[in-house]
């Protein structure tokens, strides 16, 4: 078995304990960072993603695979000419003001990271001002807002209105989700997309930044 195949298998197995040493071994054998990434690590995470889409593996499998891949990437990162090559886009996520629920939002962040996106997680109870400031600072492709209560879902609307007021609505795609949220609500408040769950949020985000 080639060392690249071994790296792929370690990612699939979520074996974050051994992947650093194996990646270093590949580097020592003279493989380039690009060869290791494209031929070893990425095929593993892509395969896990495909299996997840077919309901063949569980969320923890995906998260552990992503963790293993990131461990490998840490080894090759210093060797990369372009350090940004390991992420495919940037997302800001948060649970809106007045809402303390964060399980769903945390899962979205994890799944997006597993899909290769850089995620800036603002936490829960995030004010409109904080969302705006984060967009200006990080310039993400997407802003994801979670709301778990009928009382707080209106904050999603407030943030979208604030984006328009600030003149930055066109710079970012708005994704919304949460227990009371549906496509009709997303359409009504002018969001770009509605994600029913964490996996869909990651899939939509990947499509947006592609």
């Amino acid at each position, binding site marked *: 078995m080639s060392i690249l195949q071994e790296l792929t298998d370690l990612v699939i197995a979520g074996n974050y304990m051994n992947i650093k040493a194996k990646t270093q071994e590949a580097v020592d054998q003279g493989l380039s960072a690009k060869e290791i990434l494209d031929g070893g690590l990425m095929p593993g995470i892509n395969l896990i993603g495909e299996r997840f889409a077919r*309901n063949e*593996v*569980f*969320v*923890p499998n995906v998260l552990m695979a992503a963790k293993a891949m990131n461990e490998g990437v840490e080894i090759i990162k210093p060797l990369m000419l372009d350090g940004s090559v390991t992420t495919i886009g940037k997302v800001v996520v948060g649970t809106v003001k*007045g809402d*303390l629920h964060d*399980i*769903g939002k945390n*899962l979205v962040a994890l*799944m997006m990271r597993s899909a290769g996106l850089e995620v800036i997680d603002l936490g829960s109870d995030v004010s409109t001002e904080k969302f705006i400031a984060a967009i200006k600072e990080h310039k993400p492709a997407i802003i994801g807002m979670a709301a778990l*209560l*009928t*009382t707080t*879902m*209106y904050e999603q609307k407030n943030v979208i209105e604030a984006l328009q007021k600030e003149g930055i609505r066109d710079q970012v795609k708005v994704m919304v989700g949460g*227990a*009371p949220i549906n496509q009709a609500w997303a359409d009504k408040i002018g969001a770009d997309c509605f994600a029913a*769950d*964490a*996996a869909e949020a990651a899939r939509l985000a990947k499509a947006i930044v592609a």
Partner: protein
Amino acid sequence: MRGRIKFDVMNAQELELMKNRVEDLLSIRGIEVDHPELVAELEAGGAEVNGHNVKFSKALIKKALASVPAEFTLKSPSGERDLKFPNPTGDFYVRTNTGAMNYLDVKNDSHYITLDEVAEWTQLINSMENIDYCTLPSTSGEEVPVDAIDVYTLAQVLKHSKKHIWIQPYETDNVQQLINIAAAAVGGHDALRKNPIVSFISCGVPVLTWKRMDAEVLYRCAKAGVPVQPCSLPTAGANTPVTAQGTALVACAEVMAMIIMIQLIGPGTPVIATTLLFSMDMMTTYTLQSNTEITMARLICMQLFEQGYNIRAHSYGTGTDSLIIDEQNFIERTSLIHMMAMSDASVLGGAGQLETAKTISPLQLIIDNEIFGTAHRLRQGLAVDDETLAFKELMDGDDKAGFILSEHTMRHFTEPHRPRLFNRDGMAKWEQQGKKTLLDLAMERYEELLKAPVKVQLKDEQIKAIDEALTVAHKALVK
């Protein structure tokens, strides 16, 4: 309370371990509380405080639990359905779903709940003989001010409910307003303390953390002497351990922490330990109510509080992860209620709910009324004695003509439970009468119950007092 048929999921050693671990968590790790006034009073009451961290020694836990009232009554606005705890018959009480935001109406349209539907829902609950108290749905923010959804919903339910009301607040500032509105309905705060027609829900954020709003519920209710059903809503694998047992431990520790806090601030305030456990599906990440292991974990919680601490306990009795009224729905809700009816629970909840508690349905409510009727019968069990064995009749041997005319039959023939809406006819008659399904019959009952217009239950002066309190709340809360 315990019925004759009992599900004990823990043996004596496991129950003792569970008690010790709950108390270890509260005395060694402690809890995090974001409420300076509450924390200050807990410290004055003997808790060890370090910033937001609060620890309760085992001696303090024992002292606090000693003031949990052994007996109390949740009152009903009508006075027709007061709920004594412990239930004198050993039975459990039933409540409806709390906090749902969607209404699946009888035309099969699912939408955010309107204020008129809150009134309709409440009127239906009044007519459900097997449902003892109601909880607040979450009215749409399109209907009432977003900052005051809970207070407007409470005012609507108060006006229409004959039964006790369980309140779930949504904002810190709303808590006192909700208490004020309930007090207005009964003639003031002292009257509410004596005549608690409402109780509150307060939830921790797993693990062992209380944000300001939920701490405010504990604080205000303890001060007002309003009963609390302290609630833990953990999700196994997401914010609590993936094992059902670990999640049960967190839930019990959180509920126990709330009971201790309430008793230290307001000794003698009635409490019902409410553990509403969920799990995360590890493939879809959806939160599930009907996972088999988590159902058994609810039994652990019921056993811990009722047997381990002699504190009344409350959990889900019905509900489903199905999105509609289908076969999965009925399998999940009936298998759940059969287990919970034989647990130690004093209250079982979830009547009328679908979609993991996010949706309520009037037809499901009517069918759940039937299901809970069966569950009540299960809880009673079967006494075995010579009379129930019909031993004398059997020994006499005078049974050649069967039992239909026997004195024993005359004494007992009304006892078997007979669900009102279930088919008990043969095929020929069923076909002749239109081949009606359970849903058809539920629809007929719905139409029959709502023939009369939805009506308020209170006197004019009570309505006026509620409206005045609502106006004050609106001014204080709506920005």
